[in-house]
């Protein structure tokens, strides 16, 4: 149980994990389920328990597509994707350094790419 990390994750996600009623609809709806070692409902539960380091070490944090299907369908308004995102952010911050540098962007752009994707990528891969 890492109290400091738990508080950080709760604060940056803005989610209230205590609202979860353990229905599993988030994991039932998740298109990335098979790729993940820990599933959306487990993120919610493990964050509640303060078991954040295990999640930070898991590849699962990079497997979430941020498609927000779980956020849309969670009957309790827990917003699991935001919890996953917050754990990822915690991991990123510890590692230091940005994975995405603005000067690299022009090279990566293509016409089909929605602007939203760039914004999301920035949120995801920079400090």
């Amino acid at each position, binding site marked *: 149980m890492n109290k400091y990390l738990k508080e950080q994750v709760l604060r940056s996600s803005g989610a209230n994990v205590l609202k979860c009623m353990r229905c599993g609809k988030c*994991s039932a709806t998740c298109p990335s389920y098979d790729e993940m070692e820990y599933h959306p409902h487990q993120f919610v539960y493990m964050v509640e328990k303060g078991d954040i380091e295990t999640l930070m070490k898991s590849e699962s944090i990079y497997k979430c597509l941020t498609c927000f299907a779980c956020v849309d369908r969670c009957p309790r308004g827990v917003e699991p994707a935001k919890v996953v995102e917050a754990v990822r952010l915690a991991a990123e911050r510890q590692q230091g350094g940005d994975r995405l540098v603005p000067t690299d962007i022009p090279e990566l752009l293509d016409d089909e790419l929605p602007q939203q994707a760039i914004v999301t990528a920035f949120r995801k891969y920079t400090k």
Partner: protein
Amino acid sequence: MQRIGVFVCHCGTNIAATVDVKAVAEALSHEPGVVVSQDYQYMCSESGQNLVKDAIKEHKLTGIVICSCSPRMHENTFRKAAAAAGLNPYLVEIANVREQCSWIHKDIATATDKAVILGKAAVAKVHLNAPLTSMESPVVKRALVIGGGIAGIQTALDIAEAGFDVDIVEKQPTIGGKMAQIDKTFPTLDCAACILTPKMVEAAQNEKIHIHSFSEVTDVKGFVGNFTVTIKKKARYVDETKCTGCGLCTEKCPMKKVPNEFNMGLDNRTAIYIPFAQAVPKVATIDPNYCLMMKTGKCGVCSKMCSVGAIDYKQQDQLIEEKYGAIVVATGFNPIKLDKFDEFAYSHSPDVVTSLELERLMNAAGPNGGTLLRPSDKKHPHTIVFVQCVGSRCDDEKGKPYCSKICCMYTAKHAMLIREKYPDTEVYVFYIDVRTPGKNFDEFYRRAVEQYNVHYIKGMVGKVTPKSDGQLDVQASDLLANEQLHINADMVVLAAAIEPDKTARPLATMLTTQMDTNDFFTEAHPKLRPVESATAGIFLSGACQGPKDIPETVAQASAAAAKAIGLLCKNSITCNPCVAQSDELMCNGCSSCEKVCPYGAITYTDKEFRMPDRTTAIRRVASVNPAVCQGCGACTVACPSGAMDLKGFSNSQIMAEVDAICK
């Protein structure tokens, strides 16, 4: 000269722990007119009341102030005590130093100061109190039941049994409610129709019961013991007194493509219809939205067929007015609409149905004659997935925050019935929690698992996708196995949350009763007065008060009947004397009060007045019917000339309280 007594209660430690009660009694003893000021541990106890009575006699008190709990709790107790000691009960004032003081403050000094101020205000008011006498008002010995489901039927039967006349107003063409649509009933699996239809017939044949079907309440006036209710009998274009229910018209009607609401739109009916074979009253009704005669003026087949000449295309809605002593609300519930739950593909696939639709699909009188067939291709389903809690226990605007209470049980029932009749069909139930408290209820659910091998999976369905081969891909989580499953299903059944009928809210406004945020009617006390509303004379029966199964509904229905009978037994009831009165000399006849009075207690009359110059003039002035006035005080605020005043809460009394507080 006034002689006022002040009595400060400790309420054990409820008040005394935060308010220095001795200091309050001491401070109030110096107020003008106060001749005795005492404190006591429990003023409401017998010895406490005796202390008050003795003081009234000994000091010849002309008014008393009790510093205690809320007047809702014990005002009546102390009024009775005062009356027993020969003091008019309306010369008693309560200063609420518990709910409004000790319970909400922590600091003793602040709480004590506030208690003293509240006491001073009450003393200032009691100086101006006048003795009031209650009037008696007669009780109309007839009850109204709104809603003719199992709740309304049971309530009406019980009231009639006690010997009182009772009217049922049902908005549908037949009574019966949801129970008439159900196939078999948990926990005993007896057929719903077999136990319901005899009760419907009993209600129809009971000479004390009068059924207004296809009718709605449009206006309610009056008060406990004496309600005046306007009922709209909607035009059914068939003369109820002539129709024999032979059904020939429904066979011959050429308009056969009307969605059949009784079968949840799963098949069609004709434009002239009788909802089902055991309908009560068994009278045909014409649906004007589909009737060819009414839409195009060409047809008239039913009128030609009817041998008793009951068809009347020109029939109009009819308003009737009735008087009642008591009203019982039994408007029931409906499953919610599922349009906000796209993930279950309800609106995309006919093979995704609600549980109530499944009841019709399995019913011998349903669209398939009782054989369970897949709606899309009428083939026998081999795999069926049930999803519980659809829209229940939701924390967002899509669903309802509460547990719908009946779905765990009816889902177990459905699963078991299917396994019993079609052993080759695999049945899966996805649950978040299985909630089956109740007599023989958990045993029932366990039987589904252990005896019928229904697959109960802890988890939720996330997505249902109709596939090109006609099957449904059900993507779900199995939380105990920590797996995401895909089940290839023929049918998906959704246990939709239930909600109160949409007409309940406007009805509550008419009845001036309270509802909770979910539009369920609120009981007067959640534990001790579960079948009464907070409005006197209005009682609650069945699922309109909260989700309920049939056993609970019937129990509540009989309880509501008992309460209504208790009222109807009385010849008269005592009215509240704290009613409005108008000072005719000050009234300028502006009608402001009449417009705001929610009870219609104010009328205007032309009266002759002697003017200062000895002439006479006719002036229009307000007068209040004290039997109708409920003492809400709206008119006293609206009156621009200060002519309206409320007895017991007069403008001068309230100003005296404010002055005492601000001093």
